[in-house]
């Protein structure tokens, strides 16, 4: 099992800020969360989380249900004060500067938040009317495939359609920063693709995005930065590439003749060797170039004729499962 060595890849917090080119004249990050604690009575939902969302970038907060993602988002959105730590949103205090901040934010809640008896068109037009310079309502309905539901009441929409409408509501005021709480939950594959493209367009147009998800492919394909949160704490942070590359190649699959002496092959290596099927050997561990060379040397010393070698790099899913499994189960 990969160890927790990726913890230190904290590109999100340090000086490297890919969105920096947008920050000229507005130096503050879109989101700056430091050591935030959220408690519900005895339960500590968020336990000292720090993260930064640079301007015009997408940060994915990845974690299981109950990991503390929504609680952290609630603090960022000004719905509750943190029990510890500090939060700055676009340089402002989300509770103290609430009314000044709200027009600049787009908020998509995980569920609900709109009148069940109002139609999709009425809801979007209502939120558009709050803004002096809103997006075109019909364009947005088209973009999210909701045009034909404009006269359908919210409660008659499917879960995925409700999600898309909530996303439209978050965007209609041309916000600088959007908070998306599990934006593609309940969407079918097509709607999910559409939503991802939309979120990428947001970033391209200079909007900053903080989204929560428990979908690894969503985080991997969309996010500039991923923060894995587990049990209210940051388990790992980094770009998707950093997180998956941190421990190098993890699995080496070697095909040779069956029945080689396993103990001799593994001697002196920080890796585990198994013969998974006759003649199919798996070498698992944090394997750098030297280690891979050493493995093949052992095979040669054992007199093996190697006919195939395969390597497999970890996916974000491997990283995620390794990080969250140890702590919670």
């Amino acid at each position, binding site marked *: 099992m990969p160890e927790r060595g990726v913890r230190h890849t904290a590109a999100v917090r340090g000086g490297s800020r890919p969105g920096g080119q947008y920050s000229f004249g507005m130096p503050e990050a879109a989101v700056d969360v430091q050591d935030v604690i959220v408690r519900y009575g005895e339960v500590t939902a968020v336990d000292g989380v720090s993260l930064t969302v640079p301007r015009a970038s997408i940060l994915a907060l990845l974690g299981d249900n109950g990991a503390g993602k929504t609680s952290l988002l609630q603090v960022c959105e000004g719905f509750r004060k943190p029990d510890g730590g500090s939060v700055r949103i676009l340089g402002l205090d989300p509770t103290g500067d609430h009314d000044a901040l709200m027009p600049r934010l787009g908020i998509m809640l995980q569920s*609900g938040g709109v009148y069940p008896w109002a139609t999709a068109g009425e809801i979007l037009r209502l939120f558009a009317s709050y803004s002096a310079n809103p997006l075109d309502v019909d364009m947005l309905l088209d973009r999210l495939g909701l045009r034909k539901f404009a006269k359908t009441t919210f409660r008659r929409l499917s879960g995925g359609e409700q999600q898309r409408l909530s996303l439209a509501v978050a965007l209609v005021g041309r916000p*600088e920063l959007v908070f998306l709480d599990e934006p593609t939950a309940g969407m079918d594959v097509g709607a999910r693709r559409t939503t991802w493209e939309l979120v990428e367009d947001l970033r391209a147009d200079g909007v900053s995005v903080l989204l929560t998800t428990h979908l690894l492919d969503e985080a991997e394909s969309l996010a500039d930065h991923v923060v894995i949160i587990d049990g209210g704490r940051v388990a790992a942070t980094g770009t998707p590439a950093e997180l998956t590359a941190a421990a190098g190649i993890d699995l080496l699959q070697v095909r040779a003749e069956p029945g080689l002496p396993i103990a001799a092959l593994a001697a002196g290596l920080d890796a585990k060797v198994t013969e998974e099927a006759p003649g199919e050997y798996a070498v698992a561990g944090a394997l750098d170039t030297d280690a891979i060379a050493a493995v093949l040397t052992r095979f040669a010393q054992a007199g093996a004729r190697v006919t195939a070698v395969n390597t497999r790099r970890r996916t974000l899913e491997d990283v995620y499962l390794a990080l969250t499994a140890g702590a919670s189960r």
Partner: protein
Amino acid sequence: MTASTGTFTPAPRRAPMRTILRSQIRMELVLTARRGEAVVLAMGVPLLVLLGAGLTHATNLPTDDRLGYVVPGVLALTVMSTAFTGQAITTGYERSYGVLKRLGASPLTRPGLLFAKTAAILCLVGLQILALAAVGVVAGWRPDLTELLPAIGVTVLATAAYCGLALFIAGLMRPETVTAAATLIYVLMLAAGGIMFAAPGLGTAGWFLLPLAAHAEALRDTLTHGTAVPGTIWLSLTLWAVVALTAAARKFRWE
């Protein structure tokens, strides 16, 4: 990475508050009109009481001028049904649906949302009073308009008190419980508030215990008899408004 199209380039700016509030008030009114049970509660029941108790001798009243007694009471009842019962139920459900939370976190802001709700309620109360008074006049009620301003004054105070109570209980309980409690209180007040039966003989104490009875009595004094509103009723309704709004401000919850 996709190229910038400029569609979503940030340009956030709050619309003028007047525009925001106007569209919010319109939304509140449209949604109220769409809920059949709210319309029945606010108009149907008072109308039945007006015609039933005003034109027949189905109930015992402390006077022979049946319409002069019943119509002002029905006007007071409709204020309570809209500002208290309807408002409490709507607010309870909107809270559980996350609507209050979401709208509070929009450029509308929380004070804006409360203002829009209050304005929509005043609008509705005004319309209902005009409609029911018109029915009363057609049925034969002859109001005296010399004390119209005090009548409007006590009605505004009663509306404020009911709104406060509605928001207070909507913040305390689950929406199902709020609905049951608000409806029960409505029925009890209908029976005991001096609308279609004489109010319980509690004297001035009754005006402090039952705001509906106080409001109904004030409307009878002004609109039927053309006399001033008793000082104790002013005091009672003012106290109710202050206490209810304070309780709402303390206990109201947005989510």
